[in-house]
């Protein structure tokens, strides 16, 4: 009876944006008479940080300080369509909507500044809240003055609208092929898990997770790390602790309160090493591919293979609870070999469990 160390790896990819597309996000921007900016989106920030990220995108697209911007995502009367915060689409699709709207407002700012400075818009650029003539930095006008001129002199509202939509991608029912990319971008990640397995109690402790994510561009590295670390804990829950049906497929004995349902807690927190790679996407805002959902996908298989490395058993019914680890250690099942076939988990397969040898699920080509 002893504790054993093990290490496992997993490499994953994830499609950001809604699968098969067809999911619009829209935004609009208006300037107050003093040049401060209101941005309206329908994107719900449920903790992932989209509102902060969208504000950063708006600030740099317009060329104004971050704290000039007020973001309103509170209601459907003032905000335009956002299908929702799901499918890892907030940064890429929602962010693009904000970017496009800000680009339009930026053009209007340059038009008004052009009249005030008597310089063509194409010879102007915006930085730090000022419109400056290219190559002649002393010829400039502040965006507050531009907004004031628009309001009081020209009788105009500086505004911009933007919509991000990738068209619906049909899929062939015959072979699964698509006509256009069914995603916004594909992000990649790798995870190394170091675990300790107690072969007497079956308990697994994750000691360290090394996680590498290619997110294209980290609009806000702190929030990306938040996703990586929060995702790590969700992945740890998936891999080791959580199950809605303790005797699945039987439906009974469900946990009906915290404590009876085991979600990961701070005491489960391993050492976390985060690595962010920025290999920019062509179409995402500032090169972003996004992270979002994928952050809980790599840990469960990395943990499962670390358990194998530690004690020599595969736990393929997730989560690897102490009971499952002990049962696997008791069984120490070797795969069956049949010619060149190496067959694991035969007792779990449809062929074995169904009363008709899996008919209906197998041999679908008739």
């Amino acid at each position, binding site marked *: 009876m002893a504790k054993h160390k093990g290490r496992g*790896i997993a*490499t*994953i990819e*994830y*499609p950001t944006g809604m699968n098969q597309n067809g999911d619009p996000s829209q935004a609009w921007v208006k300037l107050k008479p003093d040049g401060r900016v209101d941005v309206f989106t329908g994107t*719900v*920030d449920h903790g992932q940080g989209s*509102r902060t990220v969208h504000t*950063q*995108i708006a*600030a*740099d697209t317009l060329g104004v300080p*971050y704290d000039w911007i007020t973001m309103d995502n*509170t209601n*459907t*009367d003032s905000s335009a369509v*956002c299908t929702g915060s799901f*499918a890892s689409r907030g940064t890429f699709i929602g962010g693009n909507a904000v970017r496009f709207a800000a680009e339009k407002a930026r053009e209007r700012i340059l038009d008004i500044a052009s009249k005030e400075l008597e310089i063509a818009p194409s010879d102007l650029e915006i930085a*730090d809240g000022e419109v400056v003539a290219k190559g002649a930095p002393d010829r400039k006008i502040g965006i507050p003055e531009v907004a004031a001129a628009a309001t009081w002199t020209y009788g105009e509202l500086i505004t911009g609208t933007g919509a991000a939509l990738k068209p619906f991608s049909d899929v062939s*029912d015959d072979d*699964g092929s*698509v006509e256009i990319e069914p995603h916004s971008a594909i992000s990649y990640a*790798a995870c*190394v898990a170091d675990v300790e397995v107690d072969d007497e109690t079956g308990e697994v402790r994750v000691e360290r997770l*090394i*996680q590498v*994510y290619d997110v294209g*561009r980290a*609009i*806000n590295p*702190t*929030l990306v790390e938040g996703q990586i670390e929060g995702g790590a804990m*969700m992945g740890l829950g*998936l891999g080791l602790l959580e*199950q*809605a049906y303790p005797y*699945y*497929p039987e*439906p009974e004995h469900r*946990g009906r*309160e915290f404590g009876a*349902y085991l979600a990961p807690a701070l005491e489960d927190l391993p050492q976390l090493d985060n690595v962010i*790679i920025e290999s920019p996407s*062509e179409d995402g805002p*500032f090169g972003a591919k996004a992270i979002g959902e994928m952050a809980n*996908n790599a840990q*469960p*298989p990395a943990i499962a*293979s670390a358990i194998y490395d530690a004690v020599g058993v*595969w736990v393929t019914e*997730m989560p690897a609870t102490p009971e499952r680890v002990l049962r696997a250690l008791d069984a120490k099942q070797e795969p069956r070999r049949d010619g060149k*076939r*190496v067959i*694991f*988990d035969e007792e*779990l397969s449809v062929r074995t*469990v169904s*009363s*008709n040898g899996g008919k*209906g699920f197998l041999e679908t080509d008739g």
Partner: protein
Amino acid sequence: MKAVGARLPRYDGVAHVTGRTQYVDDIRVRGMLWTKALRSPHHHAAITHFDASKAEALPGVRAVVTHEDVPKNVYGHLEALGIPADEPLLAVDEVRFKGQPIAAVAADDEDTAREAVELIEIEFDERPAFFDMRKAMDPEWPKIHQWGPVYPHYGPYNHRRVRKGDVDAAFEQADTIVEGVYRPQAIEHCPIEPQTALVIPEPSGRLTIHSCTQAMYFSMGVVAAHLEWPLNKLKFVGGTVGGGFGGKVDTASETISALLALKAKRPVKWRWTREEEFLASSTRAPWHMEIADAVTSDGWILGRRMLTLHDAGAYARFSPYGVTKHAFHHTGAYTIPNVHFDGFVVFTNRVPTTAMRGFGVTSVSFAVESHMNRVAQVLGMDPLQIRLKNANRIGDTTANRVVLKDPSTVQVVLAAADRVNYDLPAEYRSMTNEKRSGDLLPEHLVGQLAADDATTNGGGR
């Protein structure tokens, strides 16, 4: 550029940690009523008797709603994607899962609402329930869904298919075939804030709906469809959510609260208990995945056959979409030229499953990556080397015919190896994601390479 790339603090951080964030349940308005639901105590049963008159007569009860109060009771959340509707908002003459809502009461306080729910007379005739999706095609299957044991509407098929290359030849040619079964469990979304809605009938005739949805416009569309109302009569207020993780796309509390508010002509709040959140709200789906890989003794994956069963629970909800997304990613971060994939959405008598972080892909990542490690073990190969060899590269074509232009399997594996000082031979350490050539372009991969001028907009059709 200053803001992008900066470590700016999140706009709501201070409000969260000082307790000043206002969630839906923090909002109280004059005359607000409270809601409780009558839910099925059975996994599968016919409703043989229903009488709410005693509940309606209880002092303090302002409205009781059943399926008869819903203008459009059966509406599918993904009808726009061609996925037909199968789930009633409120049960009609049968229940298919424990916790299914049958009726709801709005009353002056929660205790009165609870008492009223207990006064509703209801009788059931229990039916056999079904839970092990591997037995869905057995002759003994007890009929639990009008569509049959599995979702039947993938065009002419009852499953999502992916077919590419010549998988039979790949299995013939293989040195070894490695087979395994992977079964990740259902888990709860576990938001700190349970499902909560507050619906206020305005003097103008509009409804203001304070919602914890992750998707305001999507949820507004769902409520409008059930009410058969135009969008200008609804205003969703939201954008602040106490955790969602996919479960708050379900629009689980808004529509019933709206029906009660309309009937009572009073503001109505419905906040689920923690027990309801655990037992009656949707979960991540359980999955059953069988993989067989045709491999060579030096670690090339020539082909893959995969069978996936997805436990949808009692109704389809987003499951057909989830299985399609799953199908698109069943080769993981690797290039496998010959594949045969079948994915089934299987109905059972559990709470319908729904989207959750990584929807459709979390499961397949677990299966594919566990299997990859097993293949490496069977072949006696290093798990990083087998990954680097089969990794996606520029110009590779995925199972669903997308030509990859910037895959980074190689970069993330090498960065992870670096971080843990992993011992890799020089030829692996120097790998990149560049287009295949030389040793990395063995004969079996030549045909799948996209032409140099191919776009990423699909290639294989």
